[in-house]
């Protein structure tokens, strides 16, 4: 099954785009539309155009003054983004891999996420931080999915798209949002899928989940790089006569509880699936909230699937820490069969 965005594209001119190309388009349009948009990051300017080529061509089109290569110094990248935001700009900073935010958490957590509050509303920080979850090909320091840390940090929004169209639409929304946004990409999604994406201005609002597939028996809640596996699992399950509703959260802050709860209220069974570590992960919050709201309706406790409690073992080892489609199939079967 192909993922499709829930945004109505009829009327809009579209082109087949990968996620990387769709993000490139969002950034290109933002740079063209608003002189206050700035890009900062390591190797993002041409000829490199970013290690995943997401910013390819942008410095050539918009100048290296607005699409700026930086030294390898993430504290200064994020600090510069925050400062430029205070000066009226809308910086988009790239942290090459999510794991590298660990060298610059202070700027994001103590400053970007708090300045609006600590200034009594005087100093919002409209920055977007783009970052990438890697995979085990690179080992344990290039494959962590740390969104739970930022869900737990009041003051920063978190988007994690799973389709090209959403990647474009959510990135545009982040860039033009007046709050700091963490925009999470996954290396497995950059070039894995093409779909028609509006060539012009396209936004997907922050805080709206998408029902990717309607179903009656069980609700599967997921986002980001787990979505293809979840949808494949739903296909398999459909073949067995089990109808799974699939909710793609798209943003984790704000998290669209109304959509999640409406679905689970109907199916009375839920599975949450993510690539982040299961223990104290995003699924814990989602499961706890569903349970608080729908305790009487639930036929079963919410099932959580997430990465095992281990540093990521190297890909070549063959060890798999992440939930795969078969795990989802198994979990849904267990819920549906009782």
């Amino acid at each position: 099954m192909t993922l499709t965005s829930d945004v109505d594209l009829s009327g809009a001119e579209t082109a087949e785009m990968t996620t990387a190309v769709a993000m490139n388009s969002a950034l290109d349009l933002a740079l063209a539309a608003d002189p206050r948009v700035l890009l900062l990051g390591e190797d993002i300017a041409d000829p490199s155009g970013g290690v995943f080529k997401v910013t390819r061509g942008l410095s050539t089109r918009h100048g290296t003054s607005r699409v700026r290569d930086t030294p390898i110094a993430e504290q200064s990248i994020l600090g510069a983004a925050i400062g430029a935001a205070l000066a009226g700009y809308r910086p988009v900073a790239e942290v090459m891999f999510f794991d590298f935010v660990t060298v610059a958490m202070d700027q994001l957590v103590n400053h970007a996420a708090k300045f609006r509050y600590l200034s009594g509303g005087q100093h919002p920080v409209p920055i977007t931080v783009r970052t990438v979850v890697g995979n085990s090909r690179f080992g344990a320091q290039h494959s962590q999915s740390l969104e739970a840390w930022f869900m737990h940090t009041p003051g920063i929004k978190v988007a994690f798209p799973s389709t090209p169209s959403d990647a474009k639409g959510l990135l545009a929304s982040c860039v033009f949002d007046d709050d700091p946004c963490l925009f999470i990409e996954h290396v497995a999604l950059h070039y894995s899928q093409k779909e028609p994406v509006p060539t012009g201005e396209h936004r997907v609002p922050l805080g709206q989940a998408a029902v990717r597939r309607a179903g009656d028996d069980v609700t599967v809640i997921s986002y980001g790089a787990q979505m293809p596996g979840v949808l494949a699992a739903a296909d398999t399950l459909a073949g067995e006569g089990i109808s799974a509703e699939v909710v793609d959260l798209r943003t984790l802050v704000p998290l669209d509880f109304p959509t999640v709860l409406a679905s689970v209220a109907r199916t009375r069974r839920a599975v949450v699936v993510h690539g982040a570590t299961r223990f104290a992960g995003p699924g814990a919050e989602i499961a706890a909230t569903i349970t608080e709201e729908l305790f009487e309706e639930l036929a079963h406790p919410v099932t959580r699937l997430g990465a095992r409690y281990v540093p990521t073992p190297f890909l070549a080892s063959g060890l798999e820490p992440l939930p795969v489609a078969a795990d989802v199939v198994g979990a849904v079967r267990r819920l549906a069969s009782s």
Partner: protein
Amino acid sequence: MTDTQLAQPHAPAGLPPLAVLERMYEVMRTVTVTDERARAEAKAGRMPAAFYPVRGLEGVCAALGAVLTPDDHLVSTYRNLADTVAKGVPLRAVIAELHGRVPGSSKGKGGTMHMHHDPSGLMATTGIVGSGLPIAAGLALGAQLDGGGRAVAVTFGDGATSIGAYHEAMNLAALWHLPLVFVCQNNMWAEHTPIAAYAPSTALAERAAAYNMAADAVDGFDPIETWRVLGAAVARARAGEGPTFVECRTYRLVGHTSSADYSYMPPAELDAALARDPAPTFRAWLADGDHVAPARLDEIDKAVDTGVDDAFDFAQSAPHPEPGAIYDDVFADRTWVEGR
């Protein structure tokens, strides 16, 4: 204070004009009086705040305030009273913030370490050592992209030169020729540790020069010399000639916080510094050198004292935020926030 001109290319010649001298003295006196008062209020329990005294920095901050305009941006630290006053933040807003009241510069929710005042160009203060520097680099990038003419300054302590964020910001500012003045308020102490105990080289300006930026050291107890050197640095920033590091050598005249002791400070060192207490020393120099008439100085003193009393009275009778205000300003929209 010496009247000799610095070799500095952009150093303003001679002395500041009378209005500037008066304003500098007013700032210094305000800071001295407010600092004493704030510590007393904290001790008395009327101001339930951690407070970081600034005594010793009066001259450095007054000089910085005198060379910046409200359009210029400033980023400061937890030890920000002198910076905020010098930058022109209304004293009532400062003191109300220290008391957690609605008319405080951050509506009472920021507190001591978190002063923001957009109209005065006070863009942020931080409680994390060194973290203001990268943010100031971003403000300076903004000033540069706006077309120049505006300067950005960032203040930080001697201890901050050890931390990673300092290095990254120095490097970036030098690389991008940012219009940024790094104002190192060297008070010779980082909490209870003297500079020689944590710095392999205490030649902070020399270390800064290695980043390929202009760097200078100045006697921070000499407001006139400091005004010249900071003025030159700001002029360089405005002219698009890149960043400058200025080490302002002072001494911390009181403990690290309002409650800290002095026991670990060598008494002779402290006494020598106290003998140069900036505001009274500057006052004497202004009077003795016929720069400002004694009667005018008396007037300023009186106005300052009245202003400080007024600010504390104002603050202590101002309202606290309504309970519901706790959810304001997390995001632009508070709907989702309230539900969590």
